[in-house]
């Protein structure tokens, strides 16, 4: 310690002229307002601001310049001119020489900056400042002060290293350059990888990157300079060698550690996610699409497809559309899954469709030739999975999945977005429902049939369906709600004929189609919600099942893409429905037996249903996550079947 303070005091005293000159230089900005006044007088506030801005700029410039010059010379000059032996011939440790000299350089650089600022600060204090002065307008908020504080020693270190490397002119320069290139390449490669897998955004956030990079560089430079002085002593070449080896070693080690950390973040499975924020169960409950926040950087999310039986998982990079929806489709037979991924790193890349054969063991996702400039809002697969339709705000397109051949495309004719819903009636025939505003406030639903073989689009009808439309699974009927839910009208889509109108005086009505084609009507009341199961046309058949649910219970609506037109009620099979009651953070499930008209509670409290994706999926037995395990619950008996570990599912309607 004695040695360190002796060196510090000595080195600072050597540069006292610089420190004395700083406040004198800091007097210059005080003249600025006089010049401004002379040029036309803009008032004391502006003068104060001019003075303070000038003082700040001068202080920063002086500080930075001192750091550069002192850093390059404090050790480097002595080393090159063989004056370092003066210190090493005294009872001073190498560490004292290193820390004393570099520390003195940093202290001088900080002090010159502060001293240059002093006259302006004192003037502000004396004159009470103006609006632009430091007193009223702190130009040195905390974070910037911290940045300057850290930038000074970093500059000293960089200047020192540059000075040593350039002055010694030894062959170790080769290692320095090679090391720098290698480390930069490794770090860049790792960053690109992290961006590709969604751990880091594109473009990279500048501030954390600069902060981390500077910190890492600072540590490496600090260590390298210490080794250079303590081991190299008075020999410039030995010093450069020590410096190069330390820098290269630390750099490569750091890059490797970073790559290893990145690998740890990237090589994860669905069970490593903190939670599942998105779940979509395929028809037959064979596969589940999952996504959620992953351990690692903030905003890092990962997506997977998990095979329920074998627990095999496949990593995917689900892309979201401009509207924030997640385009994903399963074929009705449950043998194929299609989703969109970004072609390159995130954000700005076009969307490419990926396809996975769910029925083949060991299959991996395959890139289809289908690329769209942005990921589509919605994907619909034909029943056997040979054709795929994409919809976005302006366009509907139908492709042959494996070849990528465009079979048909329809674009909105004017600049307004439309809402198009596509249903495959079979492999070659689609029905389109397009919702647009012909005049403000007057919504209408236009129905078309598209024949892929002949490429003909036939307009069928236009319906005055303004609010909350629900489509039947066979795409033949639509139930339209009134704006205030005072009525529900059922239309035939082909002819446009109104088949039924449901009303209940003094009550609101909601209706939605079940997976088997029947229409469930819900009428909420003070005593609870009355549920009546009608037929497809909205008529009450004899012996139609009726249920009464508690007031807070609802038949299950689940989040789906383009939920504005569709929402499927979950139906386990021909006989059973699930009702969900949300009570604060608890969820209660009730099974409604359609045959017997009875209800049964499932009891368990932390159960979250994993949403079925599509009509076909809505017909199978439900999968739940209780926060730790994946369960299939036999709705007939209420018995859970443990299918393995799971993560908590964050139901957007509950959480």
């Amino acid at each position, binding site marked *: 310690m004695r040695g360190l303070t002796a060196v510090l005091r*000595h080195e600072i005293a050597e540069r006292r002229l610089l420190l004395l000159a700083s406040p004198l230089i800091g007097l210059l900005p005080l003249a600025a307002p006089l010049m401004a006044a002379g040029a036309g007088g803009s008032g004391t506030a502006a003068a104060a601001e001019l003075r303070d801005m000038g003082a700040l700029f001068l202080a920063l410039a002086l500080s930075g310049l001192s750091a550069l010059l002192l850093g390059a010379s404090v050790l480097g000059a002595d080393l090159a001119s063989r004056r370092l032996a*003066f210190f090493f011939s005294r009872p001073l440790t190498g560490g004292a020489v290193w820390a004393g000299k570099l520390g003195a350089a940093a202290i001088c650089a900080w002090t010159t900056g502060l001293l240059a600022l002093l006259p302006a600060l004192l003037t502000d204090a004396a004159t009470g400042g103006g609006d632009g002065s430091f007193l009223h307008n702190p130009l040195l908020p905390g974070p910037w002060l911290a940045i300057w504080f850290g930038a000074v020693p970093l500059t000293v270190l960089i200047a020192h290293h540059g000075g040593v490397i350039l002055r010694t002119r030894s062959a170790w320069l080769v290692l320095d350059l090679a090391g720098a290139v290698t480390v930069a390449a490794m770090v860049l490669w790792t960053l690109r990888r992290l961006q590709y897998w969604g751990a880091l955004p594109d473009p990279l956030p500048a501030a954390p990157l600069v902060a981390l990079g500077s910190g890492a560089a600072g540590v490496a430079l600090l260590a390298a300079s210490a080794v250079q002085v303590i081991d190299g*002593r008075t020999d410039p070449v030995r010093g450069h060698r020590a410096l190069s080896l330390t820098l290269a070693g630390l750099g490569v080690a750091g890059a490797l550690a970073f790559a290893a950390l990145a690998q740890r973040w990237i090589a994860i499975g669905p069970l490593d996610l903190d939670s599942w924020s998105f779940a979509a169960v395929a028809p037959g409950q064979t596969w589940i699409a999952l996504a959620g926040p992953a351990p690692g950087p903030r905003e890092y999310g990962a997506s997977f497809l998990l095979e329920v039986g074998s627990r095999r998982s496949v990593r995917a990079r689900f892309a979201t559309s401009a509207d924030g929806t997640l385009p994903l489709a399963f074929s009705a037979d449950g043998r194929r899954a299609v989703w969109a991924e970004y072609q390159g790193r995130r954000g700005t890349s076009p969307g490419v469709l990926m396809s996975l054969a769910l029925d083949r063991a060991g299959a991996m996702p395959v890139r289809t030739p289908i690329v769209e400039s942005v990921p589509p809002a919605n994907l619909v697969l034909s029943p056997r999975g040979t054709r795929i339709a994409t919809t976005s705000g302006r366009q509907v397109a139908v492709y042959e999945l494996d070849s990528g051949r465009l079979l048909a495309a329809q674009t909105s004719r004017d600049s307004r977005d439309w809402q198009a819903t596509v249903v495959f009636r079979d492999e070659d025939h689609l029905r389109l429902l397009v919702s647009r505003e012909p005049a403000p406030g007057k919504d209408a639903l236009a129905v078309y049939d598209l024949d892929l073989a002949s490429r003909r689009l036939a307009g069928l009808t236009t319906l005055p369906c303004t609010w909350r439309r629900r489509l039947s699974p066979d795409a033949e009927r639509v139930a339209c709600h009134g704006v205030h839910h005072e009525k529900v009208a059922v239309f035939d889509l082909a002819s446009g004929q109104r088949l039924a109108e449901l009303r209940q005086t003094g009550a609101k009505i909601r209706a939605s189609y079940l997976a088997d084609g029947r229409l469930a009507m819900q009428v909420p009341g003070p005593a609870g919600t009355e549920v009546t199961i009608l037929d497809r046309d909205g008529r009450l058949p004899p012996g139609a099942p009726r249920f009464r649910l508690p007031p807070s219970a609802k038949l299950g609506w689940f989040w789906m893409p383009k939920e504005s037109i569709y929402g499927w009620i979950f139906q386990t099979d021909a006989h059973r429905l699930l009702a969900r009651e949300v009570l604060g953070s608890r969820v209660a499930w009730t099974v409604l037996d359609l045959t017997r008209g009875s209800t049964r509670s499932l009891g368990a409290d932390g159960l979250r249903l994993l949403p079925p994706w599509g009509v076909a999926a809505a017909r199978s037995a439900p999968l739940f996550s209780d926060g730790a395990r994946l369960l299939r619950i036999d709705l007939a008996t209420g018995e859970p079947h443990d299918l393995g570990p799971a993560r908590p599912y964050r139901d957007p309607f509950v959480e």
Partner: protein
Amino acid sequence: MSVTSASASTVAAGTVLDLPAAARSDTAAGALAAAPPPLAAEAITVRYGRRTAVDAVSLTLSEGTVYALLGRNGAGKSSLLRCLLGQQRAAAGRALLFGRDAWRHRAALMARVGVVPEQSDAPPRATARQLARFCRPLYHHWDGGAFEGRLRRFGVPADLPFGRLSKGQQGHVALALALAARPRLLILDDPTLGLDAVARRAFFEELIGELADRGTTVLLATHDLAAVERIADRAGILADGRLLLDEEVEGLKLRFRRIWLAAAAAAPATALDAFAPLAARETVTGDWGVETVVTAYDDERFRAFQGSAAGAGAQVTSLTLEEIFIALTGAGADQLESAGAGGPR
């Protein structure tokens, strides 16, 4: 000093001499033999790339010795000194100061070592007084008064920046700084290079005063053989990185002679063969006769030679240390055979 010669008398126990205890090594030879020598080089080798600057040099200084390390420019003196000071890592061998490895324990060891470098390395902007102020807290004993006194005696202004002093003044300041710490070992690398006669004299007077007061051990690497031969107890000659000899100066002076034979003498070649036992070095022949330097001179044998027909009229002169040095390291000088060289320590 530990010189022995034919007619030496051991110092009687209890005799009072006005020398400090450290120099009375003869009396306490037994006790001091246990203490590690102030400086020891053990087969030090230094390489720069393919060039070997110091080749397995070993030497040891005992307490109170003044050792002159002689060598031409580029012989490896500076590299050796840097290893001994712990500032350079030897490729092989060890440098020991007071029994401890100089590289590993440099910082602690420098508290007992004073260094006067060949080229003044003090910060040029600092004044002599500021340099003293810097050094003071680093040492256990710092004699500020002695420092100021020396500056006065040398006539060096204490408040002029070091870089503005003359070379002689810089050397004096360096010596004053080194001595103010009261070192037990002094290492000087050509301290009088470039100094005028007056400055040189003042320098050595100061050094001798220090020796008289404190019996410091001194390693003096130098070209200034004239001054050194009066002060040094031992001398070592470094040539091409190797230590040619390492011997007491007295012994050197006793065994080196220059012998001259007039040209008229018959068959000089055969005559000089007679000198083979005296280890003659190169022979110089000219109109004025034949001359050779012998390295193992013996009075009796010379007289015998003089008496013989071949050697009639042979003359012998002694050599100064400088002449010995030149004879050993001059152009074309071969390595000296060390048989018979180097008396007991």
